[in-house]
């Protein structure tokens, strides 16, 4: 779970990392007021969870109160779903650095990545000039010892006070990383100011979803999701991704669902949503189909090959869902695995024609979707007969 910049900076600040003075505002008038207090010029930063906010025009320098008000109004009205703007004092920047801590799965350690060029996309840099990236491994049992922080600071070419302060910030960033069970804790850019200060210009903090139980109050709200369906699916614990195509996937198994997605695209189809109701969710067919129907898909494609997630149970759930929700679009079902024979019976009794080959199912779904697009209307339930 990614935190918003202002949330990440609150965490940073509490751990002793200097951040610019700032106020969070939720409407143009609030932004104007906050800007007046911050002094001009100051920076309006849209609080949205996406990279490249600068390039996308979501971060703006303003020089007067009217400009702040107008710019804020434009940002709130943009199609990026801006709900909050962080109004931040402008910092007198001398240099910018990049600093982050993430995990290295192969080494079974954490790793510091740093660069004496701040503001860059680290992945671009890794591809372009990997030699510019300073790496420092951090075994969890040892932690980020002071000497490792110094290794990084001096490898960045810093000296004197800047080196000491940067090392101190890195040690604090480590505490942030550990205390928050982070996947990523990143400061990009880290400003070295003309006055000799070191200040976090931006803040990224991604908390491991599997560790959220240790961080009550951090549950993601509606604005973390790009659709109501995605938000509701998350509340159910159902893996769900929102797309804008016309075939709703209602599959079991993350790997299999991903491959079904691949095959649909290969066949020229388009996906309305990725939805995976396997594992602990294999009895939630009704809820899953409800979520799919929110997208008004042209086809629902069900593909499973379950061992623990029993085919017969899933088929019964689907039967229940069809009866209760009476979907108007056709359903293509390909259900294999434990209890397969019984599942086939159940599906047939629904009037469906169960398939046994994933590729065949995908082709049929794509064809049905194309036909529905052509006719301008979806056939009725059981239309796959």
């Amino acid at each position, binding site marked *: 779970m990614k935190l918003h910049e202002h949330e990440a900076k609150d965490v940073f600040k509490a751990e002793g990392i200097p951040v610019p003075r700032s106020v969070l505002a939720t409407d143009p008038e609030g932004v104007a007021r906050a800007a007046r207090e911050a002094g001009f010029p100051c920076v309006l930063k849209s609080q949205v969870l996406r990279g490249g906010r600068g390039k996308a025009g979501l971060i703006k320098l303003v020089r007067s109160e009217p400009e702040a008000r107008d710019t804020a109004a434009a940002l709130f009205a943009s199609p990026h779903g801006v709900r909050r703007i962080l109004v931040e004092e402008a910092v007198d920047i001398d240099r910018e650095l990049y600093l982050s801590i993430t995990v290295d799965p192969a080494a*079974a350690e954490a790793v510091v990545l740093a660069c004496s060029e701040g503001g860059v996309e680290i992945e671009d840099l890794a591809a372009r000039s990997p030699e510019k990236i300073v790496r420092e491994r951090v075994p969890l049992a040892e932690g980020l010892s002071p000497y490792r922080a110094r290794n990084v600071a001096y490898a960045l070419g810093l000296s004197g006070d800047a080196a000491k302060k940067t090392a101190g910030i890195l040690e604090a960033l480590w505490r942030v990383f550990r205390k928050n069970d982070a996947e990523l804790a990143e400061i990009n850019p880290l400003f070295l100011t003309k006055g000799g200060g070191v200040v976090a210009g931006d803040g990224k903090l991604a908390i491991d979803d599997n560790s959220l139980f240790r961080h009550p109050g951090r549950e993601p709200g509606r604005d973390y999701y790009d659709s109501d369906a995605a938000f509701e699916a998350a509340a159910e614990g159902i893996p769900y991704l929102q797309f804008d195509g016309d075939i709703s996937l209602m599959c079991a198994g*993350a*790997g299999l669902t991903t491959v079904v997605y*691949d095959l649909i695209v290969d066949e020229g189809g388009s996906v309305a949503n990725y939805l995976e109701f396997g594992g602990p969710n294999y009895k939630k067919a009704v809820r899953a189909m409800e979520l799919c129907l929110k997208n008004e898909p042209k086809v629902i494609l069900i593909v499973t090959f*379950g061992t*623990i997630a029993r085919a017969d149970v899933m088929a019964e759930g689907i039967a229940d869902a069809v009866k209760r929700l009476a979907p108007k679009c056709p359903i293509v079902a390909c259900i294999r695995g434990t209890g397969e024979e019984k599942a086939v019976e159940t599906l047939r009794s629904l009037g469906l024609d169960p398939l046994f080959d994933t590729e065949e199912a995908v082709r049929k779904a794509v064809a049905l979707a194309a036909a529905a697009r052509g006719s301008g209307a979806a056939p009725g339930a059981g239309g796959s007969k």
Partner: protein
Amino acid sequence: MSVFIDRSDRVLVQGITGGEGTFWTKHMRDLGTDVVAGVTPGKEGQSVEGVPVYHTVRRAVAEHPADAAMLFVPPRFTKDAVLEALDAGIRKVVTIADGIPLHEALEIRAAARSCGARVVGGNTSGVISPGRAMMGMFPYWIERVYRPGRIGVMTRSGSLTNEVTAMIVRAGFGVSSLLGVGGDSVPGTRFAEFLPDFQADSGTDAVVVIGELGGTMEEEVAEAIESGVFCKPLVAFLGGRNAPAGKRMGHAGAIVTGGKGTVEGKAAALKRAGAAVADRPRAVGDLLREILGDPAHS
């Protein structure tokens, strides 16, 4: 011969008295696994499917020496259970837990490495050498799909593995050992770390790798082939070829970030190393027949 487990391994089940522990212990025994003892704190003296239960792993192995531990333990207690197994001298651990906290997954893998142990999982169905032994959650009927044979399989997925393995069987082959390394971003053991075992296994003619977007495990397989660690034929099938960047495709480990971990890059690396890459499940069987010939004629 088999990779990781065989009939001769003595397996301990941690969390044996829970619903999953009890259910799958029966399956494991029925599929040939020698389950010697179980552990659930507070339940010493009970027995599950005839298997004696102990309070702690140390007390269990004192009575029943064990090589391997199968964990049916919730994700947030998995690190403790793994450390307990390692501390008691067990060097092979399988955990099915789905939802192990990331930092604990790092600690689990680090602990295993520091004592030369292997932890498989979490977020996996486990491992099976069809006809010989099983640790995890493979039901009886799975033997019909994972027919015994001479193809090694490594996978990050569950249902997809059934899909692909069915294609291997349809092509006339069977499975020697199947290792589910799991769908997490920090699995206890990585694909490439099993390649020396498959190389040494006289019962394996070729290996199928069922990978997906995210991480670098498939690239490491390519490196192992290039470095000569593994010289048998290898066929890879990779899910998530068309997945959009930045979206996590179900598995925690299945995400492309900043251009790293794309299926395109993985496929290219594997092909460069000389592996065959299937573009759909059915092609896995086809490629095996191309490389190994028709199994009916061998």
